C-alpha cells in the first residue's frame, strides 16, 4: 500500500521503522526475553521497587494489627487516601483497555506496538487499586463478605448501593483485563517456546502457550474471540469509571452530587492512563532499543489523546463551577468558594495548573515529539489527576452542611507508606514483566509489515 505524500501534508513518522521482516521482528522482541543479559540498571531498579514493596507490606501488616485508626481518616473525612488512591490507580488502568480494545475496534494499527505493555499496566494498576478498598474495609480478611454467597449469617449484599456495584464493576474489569491480556499473549508465548534453547524455559512457555500451533482454524476463532472481547471490553471500561463516579454522585455531599461525574471521570481516567503509558513507553523505548516499533508517531498520538481528554476534563471543571453558581444552592456555592479560598486552595490551584494549564504546551508539535518533555508533562498530569481525586474526596467532605461538623484531613506516615508502596509494587511488576514476557505483541507487529499482505492473482 504505497500512499502518495503530497507536499502540503506534514510528514508523519511511520508506525514501524522500515527494513523489518517477520524474522527480524520476531528475533528482536523475543531476544529481550530470551537472550538479553540481566543488566545492573535492571537489577538496581527492580531492587529499589522491591524494597518499596517491603515498606508497603510492613505498613499493611501494622494496619492489620491496629486497624484503620493508624490512617488520617476520621469523621468528617472518612475516605481519605484509600479512596483517592483507588480512583487514581483504576483510572490509570483505563488507558490500557482503551488502547487494546477501543483502538482495535477503530482499526488504529499503531496501537499494535503499545497494546501489550499497556494491558500489563492495566492489570498491575487494577491490582494496586483493588488493595485500597479492601484495606479500607477495616477487616480486610472478611473482604469476601462483599460478594453474594449463601452464608450462615443469612445476609446478602445491598444491591441498591453503588459500593456493591463497584465490587462487581471492578472485579469484572480485573477478570476481563487478565483474560484479554492472556489471550493476546498465547501466540507470542508459542513463539518464545519455539525460540528458546533452554529446556526449562521451553517447558514453561510450552505450558503457557497450551500447544498453540497457528492453525488457520485456530486463528479464525482466535480473531473472532479477540474482536468480541474488544467489543465487550469497550462498554465495560466506560462503565467501570462511571460506576466509580457513582460512588460519589449517588451521595448528597456538595461536590459529589452531580450528573457530570460519569463522563468527566472517564475522560480523566484516560487522561491519566495515557500519561502513565508515556511514562512507561519513553524509558522502555530508550533502554530496550525498541524505537523501531514504538516510534515518534506513537508518542505523538498518545500526546494528542492526552491533550484531547485533558480538554474534556477542563470542560468538566468549568461546568462543575458553573453549575455551582447557576444552581443557586448555597452549599454548592460555598463549595466553589471553599475550593478557591479555603484551607485547600493551594491544592486546587495546583490542580488547575497541573491538569489544565501546563499540558496546553502539547499544542506545540515540538513538545509532542520530544520524549523528555513528554515524560515530564506526563508526570505532571499524573500528579494533577491524583490532586483531582484528592480535591473531590477530601475537600468535598471536609466542610459540608453544618459548620459544627467541619474538619481537616492530615494523612499519616502509614497513608503515605501504603500509597508509595503501591507505586513500588506497580514498578516491580513492570520490571518483571519487561524481562519475562514479550512486552510488544510480536504477531500483531508481523501483521503490520508490508509483506504480510496477501497479493491476489
Amino acid at each position, binding site marked *: 500500500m504505497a500512499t502518495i505524500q503530497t507536499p502540503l501534508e506534514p510528514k508523519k513518522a511511520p508506525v514501524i521503522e522500515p527494513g523489518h521482516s517477520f524474522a527480524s521482528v520476531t528475533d528482536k522482541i523475543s531476544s529481550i526475553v530470551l537472550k538479553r543479559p540481566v543488566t545492573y540498571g535492571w537489577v538496581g531498579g527492580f531492587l529499589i521497587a522491591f524494597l518499596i514493596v517491603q515498606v508497603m507490606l510492613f505498613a499493611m501488616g501494622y494496619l492489620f494489627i491496629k486497624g484503620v485508626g493508624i490512617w488520617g481518616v476520621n469523621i468528617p473525612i472518612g475516605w481519605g487516601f484509600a479512596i483517592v488512591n483507588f480512583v487514581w490507580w483504576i483510572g490509570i488502568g483505563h488507558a490500557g483497555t482503551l488502547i487494546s480494545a477501543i483502538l482495535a475496534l477503530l482499526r488504529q494499527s499503531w496501537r499494535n506496538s503499545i497494546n501489550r505493555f499497556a494491558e500489563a499496566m492495566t492489570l498491575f494498576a487494577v491490582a494496586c487499586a483493588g488493595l485500597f478498598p479492601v484495606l479500607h474495609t477495616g477487616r480486610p480478611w472478611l473482604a469476601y463478605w462483599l460478594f453474594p454467597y449463601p452464608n450462615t449469617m443469612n445476609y446478602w449484599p445491598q*444491591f441498591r448501593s453503588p459500593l456493591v456495584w463497584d465490587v462487581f*464493576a471492578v472485579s469484572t474489569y480485573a477478570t476481563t483485563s487478565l483474560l484479554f491480556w492472556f489471550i493476546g499473549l498465547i501466540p507470542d508465548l508459542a513463539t518464545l517456546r519455539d*525460540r528458546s534453547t533452554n529446556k526449562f524455559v521451553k517447558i514453561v512457555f510450552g505450558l503457557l502457550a497450551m500447544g498453540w500451533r497457528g492453525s*488457520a482454524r485456530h*486463528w479464525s*476463532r482466535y480473531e473472532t474471540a479477540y474482536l468480541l472481547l474488544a467489543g465487550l471490553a469497550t*462498554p465495560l471500561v466506560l462503565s467501570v469509571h462511571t460506576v466509580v463516579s457513582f460512588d460519589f454522585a449517588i451521595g448528597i455531599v456538595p461536590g459529589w452530587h452531580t450528573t457530570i461525574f460519569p463522563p468527566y471521570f472517564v475522560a480523566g481516567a484516560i487522561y491519566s492512563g495515557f500519561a502513565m503509558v508515556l511514562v512507561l513507553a519513553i524509558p522502555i523505548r530508550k533502554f530496550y532499543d525498541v524505537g523501531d516499533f514504538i516510534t515518534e508517531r506513537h508518542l505523538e498520538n498518545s500526546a494528542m489523546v492526552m491533550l484531547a481528554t485533558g480538554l474534556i476534563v477542563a470542560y468538566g471543571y468549568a461546568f462543575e463551577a458553573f453549575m455551582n453558581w447557576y444552581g443557586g444552592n448555597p452549599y454548592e456555592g460555598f463549595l466553589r468558594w471553599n475550593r478557591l479560598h479555603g484551607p485547600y486552595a493551594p491544592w486546587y490551584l495546583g490542580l488547575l495548573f497541573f491538569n489544565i494549564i501546563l499540558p496546553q504546551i502539547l499544542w506545540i508539535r515540538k513538545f509532542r515529539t520530544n520524549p523528555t518533555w513528554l515524560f515530564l508533562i506526563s508526570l505532571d498530569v499524573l500528579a494533577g489527576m491524583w490532586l483531582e481525586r484528592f480535591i473531590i474526596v477530601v475537600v468535598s467532605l471536609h466542610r459540608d452542611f453544618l459548620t459544627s461538623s467541619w474538619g481537616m484531613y492530615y494523612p499519616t506516615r502509614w497513608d503515605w507508606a501504603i500509597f508509595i508502596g503501591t507505586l513500588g509494587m506497580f514498578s516491580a511488576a513492570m520490571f518483571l514483566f519487561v524481562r519475562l514476557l514479550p512486552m510488544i505483541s510480536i504477531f500483531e507487529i508481523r501483521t503490520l509489515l508490508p509483506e504480510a499482505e496477501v497479493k491476489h492473482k
Partner: protein
Amino acid sequence: MKRDPIYGLLAEFDTPTAIVQAAERTHEAGYRKIDAYSPFPIEELAEAIGFHRNGVAPVVLVGGILGCLTGYAMQWWISTVSYPVNVGGRPLHSWPAFVIVTFELTILFSVLAATFGMLALNGLPMPYHPVFNVPRFEFVTKDKFFLIVFSSDPKYDAVKTRAFLESLGPHSISEVPS
C-alpha cells in the same frame, strides 16, 4: 484398527500469498481434510481451506444471555424474597438499581464464554500434536507458512498427494509421523 503411521504431508511456504494460493488450489483439487499454519492471522487462509463458520459468536451470545439472566434473577431473588429490606416503604423490586450489576455480569459471562469457548473449540490446551514432530515446524511461530494434507483424507495417496503438493512449488515437503 491399525493407525496409519503417517499423519499427513506438510508443505512449507515462504510468503502469505504463496500459502493462500497453495491452500486454494489444494481445496480446489478436492482435498478436504487439510489445514494451514501461519505465524499471524490471515483471513483469506481460513477461507481458502474451506473454513467459513467458526462458531465462537453463538457461544459468546449464549454466555451473555446467561450472564444477563443470572445477574437480574439473583438481585431480584435476594432483594425481594431472601433478604427484603424495607427502606421507607420503597418498592423491593427496584429494577433501575439492578441494571448495573446485570450489565457487569452480562459482560463477565460473555468474556468467560469468549475466552474459554475459543480455547475449547480450538481443542486447547493440547501440548502434544503430531506436527510438532517436524523439526522445521518451529518456524511457524516465526516466518514460515505450512500446509498439511491429513492422511485421513479420502483422496490422500502417499505418492500422488506428494506429487500434487510439489506442483504447488513449496520450499520443502515433510512427512508427519503420527
